[in-house]
């Protein structure tokens, strides 16, 4: 039982990170109907930004409180990563809006390749390890919970609450939901569609940057190629939960996190990704539009 709860906690931590990335996928998909393949690399850029900020802080000040350091890392990563995603949307996706469906997908894949290789060229191909930032571990009834995990879950929960408020209670969120339902009608009613889409990309990138910072803090290492696997898993999570649905993205992220940690704990660590992908395939056979997704009604 203790072992199970332990794995549950590990899964929750992992799932929180996937959930944060998955929201970026699902929001962009919801609003312009494209798979933003570069999102995984945006996450990587976020983590790298956090790494560089961490090193700057270390070089400039003798010692910084961990909370301040984390906060600064997160904020700078959010700002710069948003700038990346905003630029990418403007340069690579906006001119192709209204073009055929595969065109933005291809530019997104191109951007993903370009981003990861840009980081490789400028920062070098090696793994970048940092010293552990927080190392406290609490022991409750034989279950060990590290402070890192608590930070991840708390930050994710806070951000999700904020995000929920933004999407459901503000005029910005209303504009987003309107664009999602019918872009042309929203434009006719005076919503600046371009701006709303830009903001969607910025929000997705900001969440991915937070996920990147937390990822860096949790694992203590990042490399230029680290965007792909979390990116694909987050995308899997978004699809599993029903792409376009925000609660679905979080639910899917948690599910992927649980599947991974349970599978590595009880079966084999080698095949944890195989398990996650297989469960995706199985779920989609029975629920072709994901768990919380609205079924697509096709009109003739």
């Amino acid at each position: 039982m203790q072992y199970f709860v332990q794995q549950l906690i590990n899964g929750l931590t992992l799932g929180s990170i996937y959930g944060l990335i998955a929201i970026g996928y699902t929001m962009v998909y919801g609003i312009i109907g494209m798979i933003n393949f570069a999102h995984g690399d945006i996450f990587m850029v976020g983590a790298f930004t956090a790494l560089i900020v961490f090193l700057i802080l270390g070089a400039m000040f003798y010692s910084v409180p961990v909370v301040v350091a984390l906060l600064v890392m997160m904020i700078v990563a959010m700002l710069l990563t948003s700038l990346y995603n905003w630029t990418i949307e403007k340069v690579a996706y906006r001119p192709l809006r209204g073009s055929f469906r595969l065109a933005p997908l291809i530019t997104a894949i191109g951007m993903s390749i370009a981003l990861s290789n840009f980081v490789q060229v400028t920062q070098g191909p090696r793994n970048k390890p940092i010293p552990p930032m927080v190392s406290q571990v609490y022991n409750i009834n034989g279950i060990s919970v590290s402070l890192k995990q608590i930070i991840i879950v708390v930050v994710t929960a806070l951000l999700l609450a904020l995000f929920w408020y933004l999407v459901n209670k503000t005029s910005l969120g209303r504009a987003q939901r309107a664009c999602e339902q019918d872009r042309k009608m929203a434009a006719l009613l005076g919503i600046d569609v371009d701006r709303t889409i830009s903001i969607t990309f910025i929000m997705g990138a900001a969440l991915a940057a937070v996920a990147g910072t937390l990822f860096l803090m949790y694992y203590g290492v990042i490399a230029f190629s680290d965007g792909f696997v979390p990116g694909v898993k987050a995308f899997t999570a978004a699809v599993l939960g029903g792409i376009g649905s925000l609660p679905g993205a979080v639910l899917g992220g948690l599910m992927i996190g649980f599947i991974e940690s349970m599978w590595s704990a009880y079966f084999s660590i080698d095949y944890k990704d195989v398990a996650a992908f297989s469960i995706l395939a199985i779920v989609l056979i029975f629920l072709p539009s994901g768990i919380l997704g609205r079924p697509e009604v096709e009109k003739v």
Partner: protein
Amino acid sequence: MAVTVSPERDVVATPVQRAIREAFYAGAIALGLFVLFIGLKTGQNISNELVLTTRWGLLATVVIATAVGRFLYVAYGQPFLANQKIADVATGLLPDSVATRFFRLPYFIAAIVIAALLLVLASSLDGLLGPGLAGYARFVRALAIIYALASVLFYFRAFIHAHFSALGVAALALYPIIVVLSLALYGGSMAAGFQGSLKWVDNFGIQILIYVMLAWGLNIVVGLAGLLDLGYVAFYAVGAYAYALLGTQYGLSFWILLPAAGAMAAFWGVLLGFPVLRLRGDYLAIVTLAFGEIIRLVLINWREVTNGSAGISGIPKVTFFGLMTFNVSDPNYIAKVLNIATSSAYYKIFLYYLILGLCLLTAFVTIRLRRMPVGRAWEALREDEIACRSLGINTTTTKLTAFATGAMFGGFAGSFFAARQGFVSPESFIFLESAIILAIVVLGGMGSLVGIAVAAMVMIGGTEVLRELDFLKQVFGPDFTPELYRMLLFGMAMVIVMLWKPRGFVGSREPTAFLKERRAVSSSFTKEGHG
């Protein structure tokens, strides 16, 4: 009623003013994007801790270059292009306007003269100019030769356009012979010709043709049947491992295993097809992606069979239909049988013709299938699945045959790849490969075999050319390695080509079924990749 409309700023501002503003924004954005990534570099010190080094000079260069580039584009580039467009409409030059301005007789003569001069001086270039300038001179020579060849092609464009397929096949068939002969002339002996041809036949010829074949195979799934497949590399892997395992374990010949690998890949195609039959669009994309990853992860982790990440080496070479081999130690080694000098180039040239044959087979099958009921069913399925169903087309078998046929060609290409490399490992079958193949299909113009072949040549050939640009070392210093920028440029090229030609290089296609008169259909009228 007088309504005063305050004029937009953009209307009042002259292009130069607007350009300065835009340049400022571009510079500011570039500064924001690059300040941490170019301005600082993370490196390890002796005790393996990360330390930062600064590169403010490089950052300043990049930011200023961005701003200046934006300024020039907005101030001069945009008005120039707009004026050209108006001028071209007036003179009726539109379709070839840029090209006719680019390819002119005086330029052509100048290029020929430069190329000839530099070719005559070839051996004494280093002495005359020093190694640094000689590198530039060689680059200029290569550009002049390419320009002259392109001019000739442009001059005969009507003829080429009319006989494109025949000319293309002939050029590909003659390619190794031309390479060997011209290098033999240059080097002074046949042996030098064969030795020098290795790079051109292998790195350029075979490499590009493998991608042409893969892209043509994927074209059946994505371009014809409209099923978006992001895991095509899985079938490539199945084919490669089928040959690698059966060839090394049981010593079976390539000629038996080639069809076997194709059949096995087709079987996997059907296996993948079953669960995704009900899925549409992006759900299909993610499941195929997941499938590709599953295959790769199994190859990595099933160590007893696949030897994990270390891969399988010592894969037997292809034989010349069992009559001759390409192993020097064998009694029936090709050079011994034919009584000619030993060279490793024979095998590469043979492989070149083998993959060319496989490519042509793919093209032939695709062209024939498009005229058969199943091919028409694929295209109908791509356009409208509901209409297909109501017309009594069995969408299940239609989708499954598309997956199986596409996968089969992937399997063929995979077993060829294993034979060519002599070594396979899961590294070769990452998602990036699927993405590259899909990009080639889309950039070429989906459904168009010629466009896809051109796209493969441009994208794969272009990145291979980067390996050859040694003269850049003289510009950026000896540490500069152009290969490092290969994938960065590849990704950017994907974006730029897509923005420039969203419908691909060949944006129109011949209809398979037509009434009385054959008319090309603009691909803007067709739907693709809806799954």
